């Protein structure tokens, strides 16, 4: 045991309620690192997927086809108006029944989409629904006349969207997008409901095994999320500044 581990070990001996077990017991440290890793993985993948869903969804919202627009509207209503926890459970427990399975050892039947897979799908679509609406607000802020100028230069609808509307709308949308992505990172904790071994899951496992570690585990979670979300917000603000156009807007 090194001096760091020794310090927390002694602390726990002296004050049993301050049992920072993950600092001196290597197998608990591993659980924390695994949990953090899963939370970061979930967050990064879901942030990227939800932004892609937002960009494509906002494009479909402007489609000529009324069917496409209505389907998009239905998707938004479904995911925005139902709790993400219920979405997760519905995806995993209900839809998960109907996905094909495979058998790695000829004995166990494993569904093709794992609980982590369902968490990524369900959380991405959940945050994506909000992102569609966020981008739509940004798109509506792009003047019709700017679009017209692009049209007069021979651009088609997709070119106008990619080269003119989206870059401008994206800048307008960033503050709202920032908020939604922060929420998404926090919502990844709900994946515990389908036993995704993310940070909350690992922390609860630790204090179920070592009940004196409860305070220490909760404290760690607060600090971990402050740091994780802090990094995201810092990155988004840097991005916002980098995208600022000289002489445009305020």
């Amino acid at each position, binding site marked *: 045991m090194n001096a760091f581990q020794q310090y927390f070990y002694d602390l726990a001996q002296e004050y049993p309620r301050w049992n920072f077990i993950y600092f001196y017991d290597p197998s608990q440290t591993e659980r924390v690192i695994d949990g953090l890793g899963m939370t970061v993985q979930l967050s990064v993948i879901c942030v990227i997927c939800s932004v892609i869903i937002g960009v494509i969804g906002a494009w479909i919202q402007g489609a000529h086809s009324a069917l496409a627009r209505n389907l998009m509207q239905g998707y938004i209503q479904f995911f925005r108006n139902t709790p993400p926890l219920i979405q997760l459970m519905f995806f995993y427990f209900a839809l998960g029944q109907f996905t094909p399975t495979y058998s790695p050892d000829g004995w166990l039947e494993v569904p093709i989409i794992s609980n982590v897979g369902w968490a990524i799908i369900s959380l991405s679509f959940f945050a994506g629904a909000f992102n569609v609406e966020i981008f739509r607000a940004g798109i509506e802020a792009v003047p019709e006349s700017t679009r*017209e*100028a692009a049209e007069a230069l021979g651009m088609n609808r997709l070119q106008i969207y990619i080269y003119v509307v989206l870059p401008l709308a994206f800048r307008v949308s960033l503050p709202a997008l920032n908020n939604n992505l922060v929420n998404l990172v926090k919502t990844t904790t709900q994946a515990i409901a389908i036993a995704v071994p993310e940070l909350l899951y690992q922390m609860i496992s630790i204090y179920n095994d070592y009940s004196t570690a409860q305070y220490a585990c909760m404290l760690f979670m607060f600090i971990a999320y402050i740091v994780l979300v802090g990094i995201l917000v810092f990155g988004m603000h840097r991005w916002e500044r980098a995208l600022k156009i*000289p002489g*445009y807007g305020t």
Partner: protein
Amino acid sequence: MTDTGWTPDQPLVSIRDVHKSFGELEVLKGVSLDVMKGEVICVIGPSGSGKSTLIRCVNALNPINSGSILVEGQEVNDPHLDKLELRKKVGMVFQQYNLFPHKTALENIMMAPLKVLKQPREEVEERSRALIKRVNLVGKENNYPGELSGGQQQRVAIARSLAMDPDVMLFDEVTAALDPETVNEVLLAIKDLAQRGMTCILVTHEMGFAREVADHIYFTDRGIIVEHGPPATFFSDAKDPRTKEFLSQIL
């Protein structure tokens, strides 16, 4: 390119009995005019007389209800119109410049040739820099529209349109939003264009400019062309009382 059978001795733009309504409001009530290659025509008239609508119809930004608009023999009022083919031929400059605010002056000019015509970058850049020089904006290549004055922005907009190498240019009240001291630099750029033989249709309130550069002037009021003629006779011997009244107010 589709073969339309058009030859340069026929009008480059031929507008025939065009009607256009916005809902209940009939804006154009049977307008006809021809523009030959190399000709500069000015459309003047009171606000709401339909002159802006008319030129917006020429590049299909506004669809027309009836009539015919031929651009180099291509029918604009055709549901199967190849809009890209039309817009390669017709350039347009707007009252509010409508530059892409997230692109520099040079990038604004280069965007359509790169993305729409898929031309090679070096060639487009060389041509765009030449256009910057032509509209007298050397040194402003890397400025964003928000960093340029109205007159400078409008000259970038002209260069952006010219980068597509159009056969006819439409100018929709391009000096109306400008500070008086920058109007002239834009007019000079248009005049230069006209002298190089570009076919131009201008909607304008600059009567002095119209008199100087136009080959033909059309006066519109309440959706029809009231009177037209070459500037030499148009301004001095207007016959219709509406034209006379308009000219007396504006000159």
